[in-house]
């Protein structure tokens, strides 16, 4: 295991280069979701009764849209003593290593059931790379969903499930299955669903050889944990007012599914629209794993079915050809769309993790019977480094915060941004998350919600619209600002069209007096005004 650890660690350092040189001040994330993860590390210690007091000024932010409770637990344990950017970058550097080791542990368990002796090293490494550095790991890094990267729980859950479904399974194995299932679920709900599907398939495939009391205990434990989580999730969704209309759910789930183009391939244009949801699977992994079937590799059937089945699920309820998203055909999952399941399960592509785990085990078994097992490792590393664009897409860039904020009163801040519509409307999330990232540095309360996934509910957007409407329509700016009880207003001047910017600057100056500060460092042009309203903290 120690040899595998150093191989994975060395690869991770190269894969995320140059993050290892400046983990506290740079990022390799391309999009904006690392910002709220960093913010969570900063803000977790301030949460009170399910609300954040640092965001959503003046009412606070309800914490109903958390993705990873495990990440929250870590953030609260750290108590704000470690930089959020550093913590999230540690997930990038070390998460895939431990996930890969989890897959190695699963392969070792599979091997132990098939034949005696030490598993071949190349096969172990193949299993590890296929899961720990799966194409979706690159996606997770680029998107900023770093908590997906540290997930040895899924393979460990399945490894425990193998023990539970064997003829010498014990209650201890059942307990470990439930514990690792809970850990997968608390990593994110999507991983929990992956684990549930894998355990269900294990149970169906191997129940005849299992000790039924042990199997029953595991099933009961998983059921109880799942039901508790589902209840919490549903109540949180209701509180958040999440009830997508069927039309928008259809559109959303298509965006969260692989298409025929994005299933196995990546191209630079995929990263140009603030998301990087491709590819879902590695082509070499798929090919090598598939070989297990005609070659009749003993013990591979379950893993091939798991891998291919999960791979099909990544396509979602509708199979689209490509980015034009015009031609589409229903898949076997289409009835679930009509039943409304995809209103809450919006990213079928995340089954790619389970697919790569299954296909990786199958590929590892194939290469254990191969004359040149190192070739399999080379092909799988090619999947990670080249075909998923790992080394070209993952680039380091600094992540500064403008110094202007330190000149503001120690009081709540409203950030003003223009709106970007059409196919670029996700820029609203970028602005939201940027404000939250800046708060880590300036530590003043902000109007934005930082864990928000529904822009229409953003209090900062509502306040910003009222202020812009007053400024551009010669309305009462002070009346728009008064309910917020702010200390300052910051205009992100570089984003506006010149004719609107000049109107906003003139309007804010007329209403609030001369600008308090103006700055162009940190990559932005900002102008700030004291809000001039009494603030109660």
């Amino acid at each position, binding site marked *: 295991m120690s040899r595998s650890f150093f191989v994975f660690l060395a690869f991770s350092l190269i894969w995320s280069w140059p993050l290892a040189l400046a983990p506290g001040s740079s990022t390799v994330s391309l999009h904006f979701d690392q910002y709220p993860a960093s913010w969570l590390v900063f803000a977790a210690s301030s949460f009170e009764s399910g609300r954040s007091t640092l965001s959503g000024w003046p009412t606070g932010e309800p914490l109903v849209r958390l993705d990873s409770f495990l990440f929250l637990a870590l953030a609260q344990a750290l108590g704000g003593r470690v930089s959020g950017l550093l913590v999230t970058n540690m997930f990038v550097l070390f998460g895939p290593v431990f996930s890969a080791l989890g897959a190695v542990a699963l392969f070792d368990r599979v091997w132990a059931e098939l034949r005696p002796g030490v598993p071949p090293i190349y096969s172990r490494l193949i299993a590890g790379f296929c899961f720990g550095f799966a194409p979706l790991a690159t996606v997770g890094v680029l998107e900023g969903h770093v908590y997906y990267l540290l997930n040895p729980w899924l393979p460990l859950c399945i490894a425990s499930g193998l023990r539970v479904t064997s003829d010498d399974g014990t209650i201890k194995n059942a307990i470990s299955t439930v514990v690792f299932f809970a850990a997968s679920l608390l990593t994110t709900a999507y991983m929990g669903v992956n684990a549930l599907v894998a355990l269900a398939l294990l149970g169906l495939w191997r129940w005849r050889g299992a000790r039924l009391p042990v199997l029953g205990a595991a099933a009961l434990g998983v059921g109880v944990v799942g039901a508790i989580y589902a209840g919490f999730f549903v109540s949180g969704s209701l509180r958040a007012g999440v009830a997508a209309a069927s*039309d928008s759910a259809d*559109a959303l789930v298509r965006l969260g599914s692989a298409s*025929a*183009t994005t299933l*196995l*391939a*990546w*191209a630079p*244009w995929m990263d*140009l*629209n603030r998301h990087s949801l491709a*590819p879902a699977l590695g*082509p*070499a992994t*798929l*090919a*090598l794993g*598939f*070989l297990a079937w*005609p*070659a009749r590799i003993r013990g591979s059937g379950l893993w091939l079915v798991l891998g291919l089945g999960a791979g099909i699920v990544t396509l979602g309820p509708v199979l689209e050809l*490509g*980015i*034009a998203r015009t031609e589409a055909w229903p898949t076997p999952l289409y009835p679930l769309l009509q039943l409304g399941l995809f209103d809450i399960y919006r990213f079928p592509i995340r089954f790619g993790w389970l697919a790569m785990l299954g296909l990786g085990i199958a590929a590892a078994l*194939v*290469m254990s*019977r*191969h*004359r*040149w097992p190192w*070739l*399999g490792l080379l*092909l799988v590393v*090619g*999947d990670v480094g080249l*075909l998923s664009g790992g080394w070209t897409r993952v680039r380091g860039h600094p992540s500064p915060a403008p110094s202007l904020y330190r000149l503001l009163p120690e009081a709540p801040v409203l950030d*003003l941004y*223009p*709106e*970007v*519509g*059409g*196919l*670029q*409307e996700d*820029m609203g999330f970028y602005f939201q998350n940027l404000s939250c990232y800046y708060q880590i540095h300036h530590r003043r309360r902000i109007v934005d919600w930082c864990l928000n996934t529904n822009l229409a509910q953003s209090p900062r957007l509502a306040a910003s*619209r009222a202020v*812009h*409407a007053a400024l*551009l*329509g010669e309305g009462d700016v002070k009346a728009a600002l008064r309910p917020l009880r702010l200390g300052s207003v910051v205009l992100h001047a570089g*984003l*506006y*069209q*010149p*004719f*609107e910017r*000049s*109107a*906003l600057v003139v309007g804010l100056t007329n209403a609030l007096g001369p600008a308090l500060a103006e700055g162009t460092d940190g990559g932005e042009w900002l102008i700030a005004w004291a809000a001039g309203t009494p603030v109660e903290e």
Partner: protein
Amino acid sequence: MFSALILAGLAAGAAPPEDVQTVVVDVAFGGLTPERVLATLQVADADAEVVLVDDGTDPHDARGDRVYTGSHRGPLVQYLPLTLTVDLDGKRQDVYTGTLRVGMERSVSLAFEVTTGAGGVLTGVRRASAAPGRMSHATEAVPLVASAVWAVLALVAGAVGLKVRRGTEAE
């Protein structure tokens, strides 16, 4: 002489084009579904009527996002008097009238939001907007071909190695 005529023709054809201002108007309606949205722009000495759509036919519009978009190309102007008219439930209403300073910009994006106020009166208010741009041109064939080639390579390399190993074991 003939050469001079050709050169004159070329020079005439190569004269710099008249400066053009592109104005994109976006109107967001939230929960409303209007039958027709019209922006009337007073551009220099002429009125231009721009029908705003949400069906993706305007190059600046994303289909079905409840933001109605239209664009107009005309001479550069300093100011733009504008009226937004909405047909909703068989009634025509002017929801916004104003004069906007656009300052001779070559590319201008004007965004509005229309909401229902007291007594069912529709009101349009300005939103500050940044130009949305369009999605990048997709080159799907290259990555598909690359992945297919790589997968076939892996399949062949895997199959060949397996076959040889089995042959060795048989011996």
